[in-house]
């Protein structure tokens, strides 16, 4: 469970202080499917970075599964990120010199998990993402949709409780985008908390809960009726 209490995040730009996040209080339950929408500069990416522990709030508290993660040391935050949070980026962020399998393996390597177990889990992930034949291909040899599926496999290989996706379909054509979204939704159905930042209204409409942000504040928080 994610709980934000009175989160502020200020940036200093010249002599001006920009309130990227202004008094955000938000609770996200396990297994929710949440979309964060809003115009550029509304603070949605800052919110996502903060949820992913890539950024620290200027003030306020962040509880992840009941623990106050704002108090953790840098090392502990890294370790929390490794175990509990998966990121999916608009630009995929795959390492071009590594194969698809090696890219997926990275979080396991960083966690210091034994090589045998790593291979098993990677091949399992490749299978569930339909990427078996692409395992030894490097990112430049993959299509956009395949790259994003590799990125999703990498984000979920540690079986995190939260999956954060920042415009996951932004660099994909419609068909590949839909495939990626369906993949993410499938993961959500298996229990992962899915938080998607997007401009895309149709994408936002698919989620069970939609947050609209404006000028660092949550403008609306709609829980859609579950239509299945």
């Amino acid at each position: 469970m994610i709980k934000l209490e009175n989160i502020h995040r200020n940036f200093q730009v010249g002599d001006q202080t920009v309130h990227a996040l202004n008094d955000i209080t938000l609770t996200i339950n396990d297994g929710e499917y949440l979309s964060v929408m809003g115009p550029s500069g509304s603070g949605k990416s800052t919110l996502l970075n903060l949820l992913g522990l890539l950024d620290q709030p200027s003030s306020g508290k962040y509880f992840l599964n009941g623990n106050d993660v704002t108090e953790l040391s840098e090392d502990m935050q890294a370790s929390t990120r490794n175990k509990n949070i998966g990121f999916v980026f608009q630009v995929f962020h795959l390492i071009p010199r590594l194969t698809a399998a090696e890219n997926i393996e990275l979080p396991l390597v960083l966690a210091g998990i034994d090589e045998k177990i790593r291979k098993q889990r990677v091949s399992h992930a490749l299978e569930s993402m339909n990427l078996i034949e692409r395992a030894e291909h490097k990112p430049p040899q993959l299509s956009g949709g395949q790259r994003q599926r590799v990125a999703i496999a990498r984000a979920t290989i540690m079986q995190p409780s939260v999956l954060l996706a920042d415009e996951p379909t932004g660099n994909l054509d419609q068909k590949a985008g839909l495939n990626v979204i369906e993949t993410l939704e499938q993961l959500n159905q298996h229990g992962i908390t899915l938080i998607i930042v997007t401009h895309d209204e149709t994408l936002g409409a698919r989620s069970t809960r939609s947050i609209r942000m404006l000028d660092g504040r949550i403008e609306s928080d709609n829980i859609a009726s579950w239509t299945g």
Partner: protein
Amino acid sequence: MLLLRDAVRFSWHALTANTVRTFLMLLAMSIGVGSVVILTALGEGARNYITNEFSSLGTNLVIVIPGRSETSGGDPATMLGVTERDLTLNDALALTRHPQVQRIAPLNIGGAEISWQGRKREVSIQGTSAEFLKLRHWEMSQGKFLPDTDWQRPKSVCVIGINIRNEIFGAHAALGKWLRIGDRRFRVIGILASEGQSLGIDVSDSVIIPVASAQSLFNVPSLFRIFVEVKTREAIPKVMAFIKNTLRDRHQGEEDVTVITQDAVLATFDRILTALTYAVGGIAAISLAVAGILIMNVMLVTVSQRTSEIGLLKSLGASGKAILKLILIEAVLLSSLGAAFGFALGQAGSWVIRYAFPVLPAYPPTWAMVASLLVALITGILFSLLPAKKAARLNPVDALMRR
């Protein structure tokens, strides 16, 4: 925690993916290490060369040289323009009287043309006595050395080096043949087995004749050197004093000879050349430092080129420490590879020098090899600390945004 094995593998991937950068860094590092190894090998080679040169003269040697190496202002002899007295055979004979003197040999040196059945060569002729063989630790290959007779009496016999034997006599037997030296003829009574250089003369290229014969051949009454071998090392100072006193008495109270011990000469050369080796080693070490700075620059470029990768690793849960580890391992891999290549380069270079100049034993000293490898590693690590720390401190949000 990131396992060391995986970190090394990851860094190795990063190195091999960017071959141009890796090649340039390896080149810089190996030139640095290689030049240290080669230059110190040269210095050490020069030192060994000089040391061998002098130690091949013999052991516990005292050498008497005509002339004084110091001048005193008030000497009336210098005022009158009188040159020092020559060193004569009688001087040498007078020195044999000391009980601590093991053996003594006069030496005269000159150049002359030798010929036999139309084959001619210009060689250096050494005029000396029978004792010279043992004094110089030479070995005979055939026949006998000069006979142990009165130094004052010329005798038309000669002993030749192995090269002379081959070049002048070829397939013919040399022993017993009459060799023309200048305008005289000498019978070959022995052939030296020894080789190698000493006093700038190759033993195998020498012709040795009795000292009196050399004096009349070159028409000089004086000696070039007197070699005195002392029975024990401890007796050397006593014998030196005896030589000085005896020769002063014989030269009307004037100290006009220089008496040196081979140890003193050796020690001086050894000191000078060791210092020289350190100096060239130090100069070469500068290139290592330059290589270190290059590594720092390239690692800095690497860090900024791979900023988004570092941001990604952080988002995947890499701690600052893990990033530091990855970048440092990359630097260590680079510098140790560079050092290894440089070491091979240095060894190859030294081999080429030894091949091109066989007289120069250009083997790099162990300290220089160890030091250059260590310096390479340490500069590699030290100079990549700054870029690695920079990488570890990168803000993941900013790092990910940069493409």
